[in-house]
């Protein structure tokens, strides 16, 4: 589904990713872990299309198509969706309007018509209940005045409504208390499916107790230095990153 090959990325002249390889297949949950500054967030930002990231070498393909050639919105419509570590406040644009506009943009790309209002309402009602969010959130401007936990829940809500093919979640667990963590994790688990890939970027193992990954990759200095199953995450939690750093240096 997602194929990242020998990816080199430079930000403001600084080399961040230095030959990263990653393959995510449908039905799989991958976790990218690593110490601060390893380039974890850069990977998801490049896949989503954020400006300021220069790909100097390598490729990213999604279902055989060159992601780097696509406009930002095109990536989203094809089902590549990024949940932000720091969701942006969008004053004046109501949450409900964003959800509807985004869903209709995706449907249009898929050759479907606009979603009928009753169907949309039913969908939204179900999803906000699942995320334990109050209906008043829909009427508020996107993320404006939301607490950290509310913003993260809102990101997952968007995922639940838009049903991406590949969900990328950038440090979705940072700043969450245990209750919010459970709700967010349940949201992510509900996204698990045979047709969907999930890419979790996280610094801590905590989230992975709730969302057990199929594969864990350790990113150090712009490269995946070690991959394993969920056990690797637990090991990292217990032993820290130093042993991996030493192993990779050796």
């Amino acid at each position: 589904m997602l194929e990242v090959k020998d990816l080199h990325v430079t930000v403001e002249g600084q080399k961040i990713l230095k030959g990263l390889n990653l393959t995510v297949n449908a039905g799989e949950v991958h976790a990218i872990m690593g110490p601060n500054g390893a380039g974890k967030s850069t990977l998801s930002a490049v896949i989503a299309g954020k400006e300021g990231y220069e790909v100097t070498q390598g490729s990213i393909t999604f279902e055989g198509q060159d992601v780097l050639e696509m406009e930002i919105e095109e990536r989203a419509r094809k089902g590549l969706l990024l949940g932000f570590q720091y969701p942006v406040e969008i004053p004046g644009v109501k949450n409900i309007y964003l959800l509807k506009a985004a869903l209709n943009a995706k449907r249009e790309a898929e050759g479907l018509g606009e979603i009928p209002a009753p169907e949309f309402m039913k969908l939204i009602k179900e999803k906000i209940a699942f995320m334990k969010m109050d209906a008043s959130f829909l009427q508020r401007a996107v993320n404006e005045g939301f607490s950290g936990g509310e913003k993260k829940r809102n990101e997952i809500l968007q995922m639940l409504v838009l049903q991406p093919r590949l969900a990328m979640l950038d440090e979705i667990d940072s700043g969450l208390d245990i209750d919010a963590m459970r709700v967010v994790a349940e949201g992510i688990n509900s996204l698990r499916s045979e047709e969907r890939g999930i890419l979790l970027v996280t610094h801590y193992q905590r989230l992975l107790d709730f969302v057990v990954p199929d594969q864990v990759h350790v990113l150090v200095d712009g490269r995946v230095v070690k991959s394993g199953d969920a056990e690797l995450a637990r090991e990292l939690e217990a032993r820290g990153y130093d042993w991996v750093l030493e192993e990779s240096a050796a």
Partner: protein
Amino acid sequence: MSDVQTDVQRFLDRLAERNASRGPEPTWIAARRQAGAARFEAMGFPHRRVEAWKYTDVRAIARGDFTLSDDASFSPATAAALTLPLEAHRLTFVDGVFAAALSQLDDLPKGVSLLPLSQALDENHEAVGGPLGRLTGVEFSPFAALNTAFMEEGAVLRLAPGTVVEKPIILQFLSRANAAPVMSHPRILVEAGARSQATVIEHHVGEPEAANFTNLVEEILLERGAILTHYKLQEAPLADLHVASIHVEQGRDSRFTSFNLNLGGGLVRNDLITELNGQGAEAHFNGLFYGQGRQHVDNHTLANHNAPHTISNENYKGILDDRAHGVFNGKVVVKRDSQKIEGYQSNANLLLSDRAEIDAKPELEIYADDVKCSHGTTTGQLDEEAIYALRTRGIDEQTARGLLTLAFAGEVMEQVDLDAVAERVELAVAGKLPERFNLAGLVETAAALTDTSGE
């Protein structure tokens, strides 16, 4: 090269021609015309050394050679496309000439009199002559003087005390693509009796290739407890020149709500003034101006708190793209002894291009000591991070920019109850959207969620 004197003379010559071809008139009208012409001749067109016209150059008008139209013919299909899709009472004018065929006056409710000015004068000119000109005299501006000299058509709306008009009343001004540019000087008089209530929509629109000059004067008299909502939806063709003043007099406990929505016109100057003369009177000024290309849009507003316990609240948003130039000058004046008044004013501007320009000047003049007043103005740009965030959700860049631009105007547009009006604004600012951005879908959503929450 035309000089100032010949510019003025050209307009006076047109007036002389018109006067010569006009039949006999009541003496008061002839006297007003003369006073208007004399005043205009003495003042000439305003130049930029005058504070009120500092940022607006009217040479495009002064140097123009405009004739007066006598012909209200207009393609019915085009008119139908331009007309707001609203159930309404409607008077239509084409280049200032009354167009009966495009008007809708059949089912006026009891207590409502809506007439073209010419007809109101024919029926009872003295009833018009009393109030007309009381608020906007020839000394107000050279354009008001010019309007008074030329006035012959327009609208007179009278609401008997206690009359509540359900449907909006639309005064539609169509600008036609003519072989040579024309001018019109519409004159509008609204007399709202005690406790009457109505919505008036002044709608300026036309054929895209039109390039005419409209010089409108509107006077609105609100008696005790009258409630009037006034929309000005100005989406005139981009080569049209548009100068207008709206002058309101508010009696005790009256409420005037203005939506001054300016999307069109190449050169636009609006003056909006209210006289809060009775205790408990309230004025709400909501404004939105959107300029692109080389449009120049100037809004001057003034709230005169002439009585204690009066309220004015103003919120103007400017959005300027390309090389458009906007001007906002809002003034609140509190007379001595006008205690316990509230006067709030807010202006925010959004520049969508590096070459767009705004001159914003809020002013407070307070001669009483027990008042609540505030004012402020800000200017900014679209948030690129927010555009990125919207695009990562599949919304194309143009729509994302449009949505954020509309969001900027949100505080003003949320107050607009008429979908047909809101949609015109949204279309101009954000392009075609599937539904009403701010309200309709939202109300539906809220209702649907509330309805089913008790399941």
